[in-house]
């Protein structure tokens, strides 16, 4: 009887802790996604500077921006620069798409839709003149700003919802099971 109670109690604690942990991790991921998009915004600004003012080729631009920053996005830029240097005879768009898609395994918290928009950026990079490069990057920055604005506006409530739903869900499940 006593053992059964201990087991039930431990199980309940574990369920609540697990569920709350999941909620908190969702909230943390939300925050990380926002930070990543903010970092990406800064990196795209640097990239724009490299391309328009320093007239740097893509490889150099990605390398310089990648070196100045840290984290999964920095590694993404570094890998892209490396593949451009290797000159294996692939279109830039493909290199970019593959590396953006592969960055999920590298700990990037961005969502599928963020990655899709970022992947599409590669479609117009490189080939056109400097003015078009700038416009293309500015257009992407605008899209990025909208996303960041949206995430920032809902950050507090979303994080609260994630964490409280995690705890409540755990409690609910415990009551159901017990």
């Amino acid at each position, binding site marked *: 009887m006593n053992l059964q109670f201990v087991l039930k109690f431990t199980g309940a604690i574990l369920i609540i802790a697990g569920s709350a942990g999941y909620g908190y991790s969702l909230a943390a991921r939300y925050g990380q996604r926002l930070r990543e998009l903010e970092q990406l915004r800064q990196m795209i600004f640097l990239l724009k500077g490299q391309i328009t003012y320093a007239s740097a080729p893509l490889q150099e631009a990605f390398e310089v921006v990648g070196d100045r920053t840290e984290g999964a996005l920095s590694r993404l830029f570094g890998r892209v620069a490396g593949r451009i240097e290797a000159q294996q*005879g692939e279109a830039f768009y493909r290199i970019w798409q593959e590396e953006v898609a592969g960055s999920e395994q590298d700990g990037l918290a961005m969502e599928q839709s963020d990655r899709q928009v970022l992947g599409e950026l590669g479609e117009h990079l*490189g080939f056109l003149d400097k003015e078009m490069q700038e416009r293309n990057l500015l257009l992407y920055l605008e899209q990025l700003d909208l996303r960041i604005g949206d995430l920032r506006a809902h950050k507090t409530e979303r994080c609260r919802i994630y964490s409280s739903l995690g705890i409540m869900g755990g409690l609910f499940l415990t009551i159901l099971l017990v």
Partner: protein
Amino acid sequence: MDKREELIKIFSKDIRTILKQLSADFEQVQEIRLRIHAPLLMIYNNHEYYITPEGNLSKRAEEAYMVSRQELKETLEYMSNYSLYAFEEEIKQGFITIQGGHRIGIAGKTIADEHGIRSMKFISFINVRLSHQVRGCASMVLPYLYSGGEIQHTLIISPPRCGKTTLLRDIIRQVSNGTGPEPGLTVGVIDERSEIGACYQGIPQNELGIRTDILDCCPKVQGMMMLIRTMSPRVIAVDEIGSREDLEAIEYVMNCGCKLIATVHGSSIEDIKQKPVLRKMVMERWFERYIILNNRGKVGNVDQIYDSRGTKLYPVGVECI
């Protein structure tokens, strides 16, 4: 990385495969030409050949590999390292210099405004010119360019494709490094079209000597003034002079105590006397040495060397390149 690998990388995948199979010696390759819906051509050892899909050189047009629009587009992307925008200024002039010093001439539809050519689109013609340095090709002429231990103002006169830039490049290298009894001198090079030093990202791909400073892609007139003020060269070297503005800048260089080595298109002193700007320089004896090149027999044949009075210094035509 050898020349073949370095060069093959700039082509589209299919052309890469063909060139990889090619048994030709890339040291002898002078040009590779790509035109949309036209045969892939190679100038090899002064002869033009078609390249076949199997990677052979052929004289028969029907065996040639035909270049498609997509391949040309891909090639442009690879040769610019996916960054055509970074070559905007070069494209305006119609060429791109790539790693290894090779120059890629391009032609297509130009977009012009009141300031001149703004850009080029629908690039449909590519000419890959392989850079060949001929170290030591100036050794034969150099003794004639010094007088009393001092280098003389020198003008190299040559028809196109006779090796004047190659000769100028080696003169610069030897004057800069020092040759025999002559000590090395600081040389300033204004490389308006990246032909002399073939700089790639600021680093000369051709050897121009240890005391040489290069202003890459710089207009000659501004470049000459700038170098004199900033780098205090003893010798200034420029390629293809001839405009009225050049005349003023050259006068400035000569009055500054610098020695000038320049090249010009022409076939003889008489020929350049027909051109009003150059006529003044010849008549007023600005230059102290004239080297005339021709391609009789072989590219880079020195036809004559004259001093400022037109006295022959070099009795027989000797191949030097």
